[in-house]
C-alpha cells in the first residue's frame, strides 16, 4: 500500500490566499472560471450530461457522511419537464465531532457557491437553497453576503455568462434540530414544517421539495465540484486514497494538542493525523480510542489502529466508517461508560419521535446507560443494551436509529471489560 503524501499537499478547497472569501479576490484567482467554462465552452462541455459524467467519474463521495458518489446521485434526476427543480445544499452540520463546513462558509464561500451553480446547471435546477443550522448565525450572515455579491456580479440570476441558464440562490436558516441534517427531514424543514424524515421511496430526485425533483448535497461535496471542473476528474482521483478520492476537510477534536480543521488528502494514516497534524496527545497521555467520523461512526481502540488510514476501505477493515471525517480523539483517562452515556443522551434528545423503535429505543438506551454510569447496572443490562440496538437498526424511516445504535453496540463490544467493571455483581435468586 502506498502512503499518501499529505506533507506536500497544497490546499485547493480553502487555498492559502488572503481574503479569498471576497468575490473580487476569488475571481482574480480563477474563481467562477469553472462555471463560465461549463456554460460557454461548448467544445469542452457539449451539454449538461457531459458535466454530470465528469463529476461521476471523479467519484466525489458525499462528505456529509454517507459517502455516496455525488455525480451518480445527480444522474438520478428525471429529465426536465419545464417545471421547477431544486438543489438543497446541506449545511446543517450537527453530527457531534463535525465542524468543517463552517470553514467553507467563512473562508471560501464562493468555491461552494460556484460548485452549487455548476451542479444546478448540470441538473437543470431552477432554485438553490442552502440550509444552514440556526446556531451558525455568523456563517448565515457570511453566506447571505457572499450570495448577494455573486448576484451583483452576475454569477447568480438570469442568463449567467450570457447563457440561457438562470437560477436563484437562497439561504434558509435552521432552528436547532440535529435531525434536519437527514436529507428528507431537511426538505420538510425547508418547507416550513417539523423536521420529520420522509418515507422513501419516492426519493427526492422524483419527489423532493414541494413534490418536485430535488437533489441534496453536502456543502463540502459541492465545493469539490468546482475543483473537479477546473482540474478534471483524473486530477481529483489522483489525490489521496483510491477508494475515497480527493481532498477532505478533517475535523480533529478531543484530547490532542492542536485540534482544528485541516484540508488534506483522503487516506492519511490515523496516527499521522493525531501525532503530526494535531501535534500529539495532550499532556503526554496515551491514546485510548478514536471515533473517526462523527458520533455515529463506531469507536476504534488504539490497538486496532496500526496502519489504518482515513478512507472507507481501511476503516471498514476495523469495523468503522469515514463518516464526516470529524475525528474525536480520546486519551487513556477517558471513561468510556460516561462517553457512551453522553452519546445516548444526544440521540435520545434528537430523535424526532416519529418511529417507535427510535423514539422508545433511544430513550431506553439512555436510561440503561445512566443506570450503568451510576454504578447500578448489572451485567445483564449490557446484553439488554445490545438487544435494544438490534430492535432499532433498520426498522425506522431514517438512519437516526442506526446512528444511535452503532456507538452502543461497538463501544460495549470493544470496551466490554470497562463496562462490566462498572456493573454490580449480579445476584439472582433462582426460582
Amino acid at each position, binding site marked *: 500500500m502506498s502512503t499518501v503524501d499529505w506533507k506536500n499537499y497544497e*490546499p485547493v478547497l480553502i487555498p492559502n490566499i488572503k481574503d479569498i472569501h471576497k468575490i473580487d479576490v476569488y475571481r482574480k484567482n480563477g474563481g467562477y472560471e469553472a462555471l463560465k467554462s461549463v456554460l460557454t465552452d461548448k467544445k469542452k462541455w457539449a451539454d449538461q450530461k457531459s458535466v454530470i459524467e465528469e463529476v461521476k467519474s471523479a467519484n466525489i463521495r458525499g462528505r456529509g457522511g454517507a459517502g455516496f458518489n455525488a455525480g451518480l446521485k445527480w444522474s438520478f434526476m428525471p429529465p426536465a419537464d419545464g417545471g421547477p427543480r431544486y438543489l438543497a445544499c446541506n449545511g446543517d452540520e450537527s453530527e457531534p465531532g463535525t465542524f468543517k463546513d463552517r470553514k467553507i462558509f467563512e473562508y471560501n464561500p464562493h468555491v461552494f457557491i460556484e460548485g452549487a451553480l455548476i451542479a444546478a446547471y448540470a441538473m437543470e435546477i431552477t432554485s438553490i437553497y442552502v440550509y444552514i443550522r440556526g446556531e451558525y448565525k455568523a456563517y448565515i450572515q457570511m453566506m447571505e453576503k457572499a450570495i448577494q455579491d455573486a448576484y451583483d456580479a452576475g454569477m447568480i440570476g438570469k442568463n449567467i455568462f450570457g447563457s440561457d441558464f438562470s437560477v436563484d440562490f437562497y439561504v434558509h436558516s435552521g432552528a436547532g434540530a440535529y435531525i434536519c441534517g437527514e436529507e428528507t427531514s431537511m426538505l420538510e424543514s425547508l418547507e*416550513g414544517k417539523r423536521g420529520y424524515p420522509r418515507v422513501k421511496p419516492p426519493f427526492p430526485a422524483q419527489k423532493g421539495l414541494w413534490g418536485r425533483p430535488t437533489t441534496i448535497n453536502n456543502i463540502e461535496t459541492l465545493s469539490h465540484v468546482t475543483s473537479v471542473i477546473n482540474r478534471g476528474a483524473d486530477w481529483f482521483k489522483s489525490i489521496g486514497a483510491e477508494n475515497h478520492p480527493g481532498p477532505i476537510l478533517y475535523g480533529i477534536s478531543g484530547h490532542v494538542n492542536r485540534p482544528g480543521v485541516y484540508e488534506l488528502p483522503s487516506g492519511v494514516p490515523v496516527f499521522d493525523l493525531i501525532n503530526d497534524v494535531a501535534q500529539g496527545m495532550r499532556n503526554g497521555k496515551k491514546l485510548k480510542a478514536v471515533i473517526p467520523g462523527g458520533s455515529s461512526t463506531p469507536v476504534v481502540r488504539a490497538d486496532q489502529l496500526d496502519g489504518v488510514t482515513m478512507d472507507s476501505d481501511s476503516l471498514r477493515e476495523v469495523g468503522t466508517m469515514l463518516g464526516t471525517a470529524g475525528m474525536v480523539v480520546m486519551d487513556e483517562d477517558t471513561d468510556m461508560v460516561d462517553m457512551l452515556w453522553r452519546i445516548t443522551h444526544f440521540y435520545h434528545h434528537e430523535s424526532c419521535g416519529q418511529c417507535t423503535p427510535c423514539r422508545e429505543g433511544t430513550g431506553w438506551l439512555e436510561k440503561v446507560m445512566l443506570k450503568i454510569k451510576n454504578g447500578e447496572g448489572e451485567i445483564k443490562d449490557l446484553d439488554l443494551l445490545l438487544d435494544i440496538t438490534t430492535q432499532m437498526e433498520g426498522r425506522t424511516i431514517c438512519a437516526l436509529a442506526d446512528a444511535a445504535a452503532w456507538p452502543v453496540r461497538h463501544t460495549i463490544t470493544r470496551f466490554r471489560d470497562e463496562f462490566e467493571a462498572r456493573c454490580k455483581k449480579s445476584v439472582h435468586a433462582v426460582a
Partner: protein
Amino acid sequence: MKYEFTEDDLQEIEKIKAKYPEVKAATLPALWVAQNRFGHVNSDVQKLVAETLELPEAHVHGVATFYTQYYKEEKGKFVLDVCTCLSCQLCGGYDVLERAEEKLGIKAGETTDDGMFTLNEVECLGACGYAPMLQITNDKYVNNLTPEKIESLIEDLKAGKTPEYEQIEMPLRKVK
C-alpha cells in the same frame, strides 16, 4: 401583552415569502423575525406569526415547539447554552457547566431571579475543535472555555461587555 410586528418586520416577512413557492415555507424564518423582535415566541407570538402568514396556529405551534432555538417563553437577557456533547464532554464541558451553575446560583434550565441569565445544557453546536464552548442567546460562540473563563465571561456580561465574533484559523493554513 399585545404583540405586533413593525412595518419593517412585515416588509421583511414579505421578502421572505418571495423566496419560496409556498407561504408555509416562511414559517421558520418568520418565527426568527418574531423572536428577534420580541425575544421569544410564546403562544401569543406564535398566534401573531400564524395570523401574519395566514396559516393555522396549530401549524406554527407545532413548528415552534419542534426546534430548540425558539424560546417558547421569556428567557434571561443572556441565554448561556453550554455544550456538553461528546468533544465538549471530553474536554471538560461539565466542569464549565457546574462552575456556571455555582456562579449564577441556578441549575441548567433555570433563569436567575434578576432575569439576567438563563443557563442551558445543550447538544453539539459544531465547534468540537474549540471545546468546551457555549453560545450566547443564539448568537456569539465563546470557545475553549475553562471554569475560570466562564466566571469572567459572566462578570463581563453583567458589566455589559459582550464578546465579539471569534475567528479561528485552520492551523495548517498559511495565508500568502
